[in-house]
């Protein structure tokens, strides 16, 4: 079981929590009495669906690899890899209804992929060319938030708005909406996350708190944030909580579907701890060799969430080499597009730094912009030069 992982990643010994698991690391369906309700939630998924999930995970991994490479080549200022968390992200995103809204942190590339956020737009922030990069209205995915935990309150407030719009408990599947917010194990320590649990609980807001416990907050193991499994945090606030194998895409789909069903029906919030692993560095500026063991990384490499789906597909005769080859070609195409289009992203005009400070611009900004434009003309500096 993951919680017996070597190295600093053990959560407290007290931790003997069984995870919700539907597929074993070796690709067999896990059939136990206590995962029956969750099994029933994936019954309707066809082999085609499983293949589509697999494809989403593979394309997410390729996006990750390409972005990492682009950073190494100096094309991105920074990049935060999602490697290892594809099942948690793709599985949970698959459970969303179109009208559901997502508040990610900064590592949910798989969620953004499933929700259709353009891959190039996903990298504008990391290129240092935009603080956001996409229009949330198009994908119902809010912008990445870099101040740990603060977006979890936004998600709860947004869900309170959904309640006020009467878009909860109508029984109309195309109408009932919920909010899913993603955050990490480290984020659970922030006061804002606890306050979000308070507000969601007392307002019975349709918020799904999806905590990806990837066992590290940069160099700190989860044991520095909690001495008991994190899913218990939700219970302390009176929020139904569940711990799921974050490397099992079907289990992640099932627990999220359950949580969304509750939220849509007016049953209020759910706290999900997806127990997974950050296989890569925290970001491209990080050096994990300073704080964790190769053995631990090796242990998890053998539990790669993508391999697990491949094994499942093979075990269930749903694998098809031609189809797999096509995925590789699609991945190559994605990589090709990223390499050309990200490189092509220039610097925005310098004066854009004065835009949208306010929706109703005031004299201070107008005067400074005017000064800057006059200064630029005079010194003949051009915004592109300045971008050097």
């Amino acid at each position, binding site marked *: 079981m993951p919680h017996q992982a070597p190295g600093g990643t053990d959560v407290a010994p007290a931790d003997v929590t069984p995870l919700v698991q539907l597929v074993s690391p070796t690709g067999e369906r896990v059939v136990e009495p206590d995962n029956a309700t969750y099994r029933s939630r994936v019954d309707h998924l066809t082999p085609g669906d499983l293949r589509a999930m697999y494809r989403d995970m593979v394309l997410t991994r390729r996006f990750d690899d390409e972005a990492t490479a682009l950073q190494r080549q100096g094309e991105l200022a920074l990049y935060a890899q999602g490697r290892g968390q594809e099942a948690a992200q793709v599985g949970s995103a698959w459970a969303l209804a179109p009208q559901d809204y997502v508040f990610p942190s900064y590592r949910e590339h798989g969620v953004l992929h499933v929700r259709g956020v353009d891959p190039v737009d996903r990298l504008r922030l990391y290129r240092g060319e935009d*603080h956001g990069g996409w229009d949330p209205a198009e994908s119902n995915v809010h912008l990445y938030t870099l101040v740990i935990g603060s977006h979890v309150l936004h998600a709860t407030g947004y869900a309170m*708005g959904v309640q006020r719009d009467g878009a909860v408990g109508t029984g109309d599947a195309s109408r009932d909406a919920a909010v899913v917010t993603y955050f990490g194990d480290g984020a659970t320590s922030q006061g*804002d996350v606890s*306050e979000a649990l308070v507000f969601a609980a007392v307002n019975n807001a349709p918020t799904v708190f999806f905590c990806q416990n990837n066992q590290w907050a940069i160099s700190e193991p989860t044991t520095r944030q909690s001495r008991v499994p994190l899913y218990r945090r939700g219970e302390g606030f009176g929020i139904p909580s569940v711990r799921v194998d974050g490397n099992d895409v079907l289990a992640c789909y099932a627990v999220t579907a359950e949580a969304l069903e509750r939220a849509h029906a007016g049953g209020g919030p759910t706290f999900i701890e997806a127990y997974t692993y950050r296989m890569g560095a925290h970001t491209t500026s990080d050096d994990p060799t300073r704080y964790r063991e190769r053995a631990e990384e090796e242990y998890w490499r053998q539990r790669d969430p993508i391999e697990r789906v491949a094994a499942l597909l093979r075990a269930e005769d749903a694998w098809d080499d031609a189809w797999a080859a096509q995925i590789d070609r699609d991945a190559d195409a994605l990589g090709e597009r990223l390499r050309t289009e990200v490189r092509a992203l220039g610097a925005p005009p310098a004066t854009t730094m004065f835009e949208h400070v306010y929706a109703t611009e*005031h004299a201070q900004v107008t005067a400074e912009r005017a000064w800057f434009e006059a200064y630029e003309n005079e010194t003949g500096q051009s915004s592109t030069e300045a971008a050097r």
Partner: protein
Amino acid sequence: MSETLTFARAITDGLRSALESDEKVLVMGEDVGRLGGVFRVTDGLQKDFGEDRVVDTPLAESGIVGTAIGLALRGYRPVCEIQFDGFVFPAYDQITTQLAKMHYRSRGRLQVPVVIRIPYGGGIGAVEHHSESPEALFAHTPGLRVVSPATPQDAYDMIRAAVASPDPVLFFEPKGRYWTKGEVATSPYPSADAAGSADVLNTARVARRGDDVTLVAYGPTVATALKAADALASEGTSADVVDLRSISPLDVTAVAESVRRTGRCVVVHEAPSFLGSGAEVAARVTEECFHSLEAPVLRVGGFHAPYPVAKLEHEYLPSVDRILDAVDRALAF
């Protein structure tokens, strides 16, 4: 129409008209519901608009502002009440890193029309954290508007303009003035003259005309400055009193116009002088009016000490005497 209202009641009526005219407007905070807030500014609103629109929140300021941001992203216009000046700081991260930057971060795609009402200022004999003036701690942050009315009429007009504004507004209410009365012309909402309504968030108001010295004040110190002007008049000195109304942005044009006439300027606020809004006023006025200035811009503010015990607050706060002393120094230069 027009009626006589207390400063507090003018805000209540402004909020009421906003709640009536736009169902997306919400009021939220600690004890704003059944109690009507510790200053009763939201008195009666929950009864009339219900618990979903006038919301008693958990005791957590970061949660109040953070959820208000989420509500705004969903299309609501939350007006948050912070119970006292000294209790806004748990929400400081949400205000500074999220509320102020969301519109910019999204390149204008997202708006967060959140108003944060903060009763502030001293002179009411309160205990620690209940008499402070933290406005400068917000005015330095681009993306926020920081305003403070000084009269019931402005309280009414400015709260309506703040709720109507697509930008976040820190609305500082001089709690010491809550019980003062004034004539208030109430108008249909949205204000007949929408431009006019936004104007009160951008422009200073000349509270009194004079030619010898310019007194710049806002919120609670406007009344003190006017008293000082009376005293000066009796000594034959005529003071121009400029009520800033907005601390960010600053209506530099209005202040400079006055100082060019008077050649002397004294800025008055309750916050500590060191890096208080008066520092920006002094710096800007000097840049704009260097050749017209007969004396440096002088500042009368709180001292460089935490707000003192109630027994000493009248020594700490800018008084008519301290303003007169500064004016004397300015005239003697």
